[in-house]
C-alpha cells in the first residue's frame, strides 16, 4: 500500500517538473538576454534614425586623470567615442556594478543629462536600475565639483549598480564639458 504522504510528495514534484518544463517551453525560444537595446538602436532613437558621424576624446593627460578620479579606478581604453555635436551628444559607456559590466547609453545636452538608459545588464541582481522610474531621476542632472547636482534615491540590493550608473553619468557630463572647452 502506497503511503499517502509519499503520494502527495511525488505529486508535488511531478507538478513542479511540469511547471518548469512549461516555463522553458514558453520562454526558451525567445531570443534575448540582458541586452535591452543595441548600441545602434539607441543611437538611432536618439538621433531620429540618422546616426551622425562619431568623434573621439583621447584619454590622455588631465582628461584621463579626471575620468579616473570620477570612476575611482583606472580607465582601460585609449579613447572614448561620442556621437553628435557640441550642444547635444550621446555616449555609450560601460562600468562594472558588483562584478559584471553594465552598458549605459547617455545623452547630454547643454551640460545636463537628457536621458540615461541601461542597454545591457549582466549582474545577478539589481536589474531594477533599468526602469524609467529610476533612470528619470537623472534627467536634467548637471555636474558640480565632479558630483551630480541632483540626489538619486537608490535601490535596495542594487547599490553597486546605482553607483555605476551615477559614475557614468558624471563621466559623460565631464567629457561633454571637456569637448565644449576644446571646441
Amino acid at each position, binding site marked *: 500500500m502506497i503511503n499517502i*504522504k509519499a503520494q*502527495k*510528495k511525488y505529486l*508535488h*514534484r511531478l507538478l*513542479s517538473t511540469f*511547471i*518548469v518544463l512549461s*516555463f*522553458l517551453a514558453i*520562454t*526558451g525560444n*525567445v*531570443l*534575448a*538576454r*540582458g*541586452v*535591452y537595446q543595441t548600441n545602434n538602436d539607441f543611437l538611432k532613437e536618439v538621433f531620429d534614425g540618422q546616426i551622425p558621424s562619431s568623434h573621439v576624446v583621447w584619454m590622455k593627460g588631465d582628461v584621463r586623470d579626471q575620468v579616473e578620479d570620477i570612476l575611482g579606478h583606472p580607465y*582601460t*581604453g*585609449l*579613447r572614448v567615442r561620442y556621437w553628435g555635436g557640441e550642444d547635444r551628444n550621446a555616449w555609450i559607456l560601460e562600468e*562594472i556594478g*558588483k*562584478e*559584471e*559590466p553594465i552598458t549605459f547609453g547617455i545623452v547630454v545636452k547643454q551640460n545636463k543629462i537628457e536621458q540615461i538608459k541601461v542597454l545591457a545588464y*549582466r549582474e*545577478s*541582481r539589481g*536589474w*531594477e536600475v533599468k*526602469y*524609467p*522610474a*529610476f533612470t528619470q*531621476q537623472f534627467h536634467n542632472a548637471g555636474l558640480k565639483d565632479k558630483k551630480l547636482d541632483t*540626489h*538619486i*534615491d*537608490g*535601490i*535596495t*540590493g542594487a*547599490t553597486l549598480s546605482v*553607483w555605476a550608473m551615477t559614475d557614468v553619468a558624471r563621466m559623460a557630463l565631464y567629457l561633454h564639458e571637456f569637448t565644449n572647452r576644446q571646441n
Partner: protein
Amino acid sequence: MAAMSSGYAATPSNEEIWQLLQEMKQQLEDVKQQNQNLKTENQSLKQQVDETQLKAQEASDTAEALAIATEEAVKSAAASESKTSIGGYGELHYNNLQNQGTGKDKDEIDFHRFVLFFNHEFNDRLRLFSELELEHSISGDGQNGEVELEQAYIQYDLSAHHRVNAGLFLMPIGLINETHEPNTFYGVERNNVEKNIIPTTWWEGGVMFSGEVAEGFSYDVAMTSGLNTSLSNNYAVRNGREKVSEADASDFAYTGRLKWTAIPGIEVATSLQYQEDVTQGQDPEAGSAVFWEVHTAIQKGPYGLRALYATWHLDGDGPADVGADKQTGWYVEPSYKLTDSVGLFTRYSLWDNQAGNSSDSEVRSWDMGVNWWLDPQVVVKFDYQDQDAEDKDDEFDGFNIGLGYQF
C-alpha cells in the same frame, strides 16, 4: 658747334639702339629663364608640400590605426579576462556583551567572515556565480570556523526578462539573506530576526526561475532541498539548515517571492515557502511547514526605514509540544544619514523560536548605533544593544564594533 656735338652725343646711334635692344632682349630672356626656374621650383615645392601632406595623413592614419589596434587588443585582453571576475567582502567584529543570566559574557574579537566571489561568463546567456566563505578566521577539527560554499549556481537567460538559476543559491527571502555585504546594512552583526527566524544566511540546492512581469514587479519561484530540524534542538529552523552538504533530500521545499520596486528608494516584497517535511521524514511527530515573510525597505534622501515580519508554522505534535509549531519575529529599523558618509540607526526587534507555547520565550532587543563609510565600500560600525528576555541566559547587553569592506 660744341652744343651740336653734345646733342649728337646724347642721341644713340642705330648701332647703340640695336645694342640696347639686344641687351634688353637678353635681360628679358634672363627674366623668362628666372621665371621658368621659379615655376619649376614652385612646382617642386608644391609637390613636396603635397607629398608632405600625404605623408602626414598617412602617418595620422597609421597612428589612428595603431591606436585602434592597440585599444582593441587591450579591450580584447580585458574582455577575455573579464569573462572571469573576482569580488568579495569581509568583516571584523569586536563584541563586548554581558550575559544577564548565568551564561558566559561575550568579550571577543573575531574576523567573522572572509568571502570571495568567483564568477564566469560562459557566453552571452550563460554564467556562473559563486561565493566561498571562511567564517571565524580558521577552520578544521576543533577550530571555531568553517569554510562554506554559500553560492555556486549557473544562471541562464531565458529571455531579456526571465532567467533560470540552477545549483546552490541563496533563498529569495528577507532583506539580508541575499544582500549581506557589511557596507549595505546597519549594525555590526546581522539582525537577530533574520538570523533566527528566516534563518539567514540560508542557501539550498535546486532550481529557481526569476524575472520581471511588469516594470518594477519581479518574481522568483524555486524548488530546492529542504530543512532538517529535530526535537534535539527544539525544531529551531536555524539548526535545520543542511547547507547542501550530503544533505538528506527526502523532502523538498517550494518557495515563491514577489517584489515591488517601481518607485526609486522603495522596496516591498513577500515570500512564501512550503516544506514537505522539516525533519526529512526522520520524525513521525513532525511534518510539513509553511513560512511567510513580508518586508519593506525605504531610503528617501537621508531618511531610511526597514521593517520585516517573518513567521513559521510547523505541523505535527512534536513541534507543538515544545511550542516550536510557531516561530516568529519582526523588526523596525529607522535610520538617518547625517552626511553621505555617516548614518545613524535604531532598531527594535522581537523574535521567538517557541512562540507556540504559553511560556515567555521571546527575546526583545533595542539596538542603536552609527555607520561611518570611509569609502562607499568600506565601513566602520558601532552599536549598542539592550536585550530583554524572560530567560536571562538569552539576554545580552553591551556594545559591538565592526570594520567591513566589499570590492
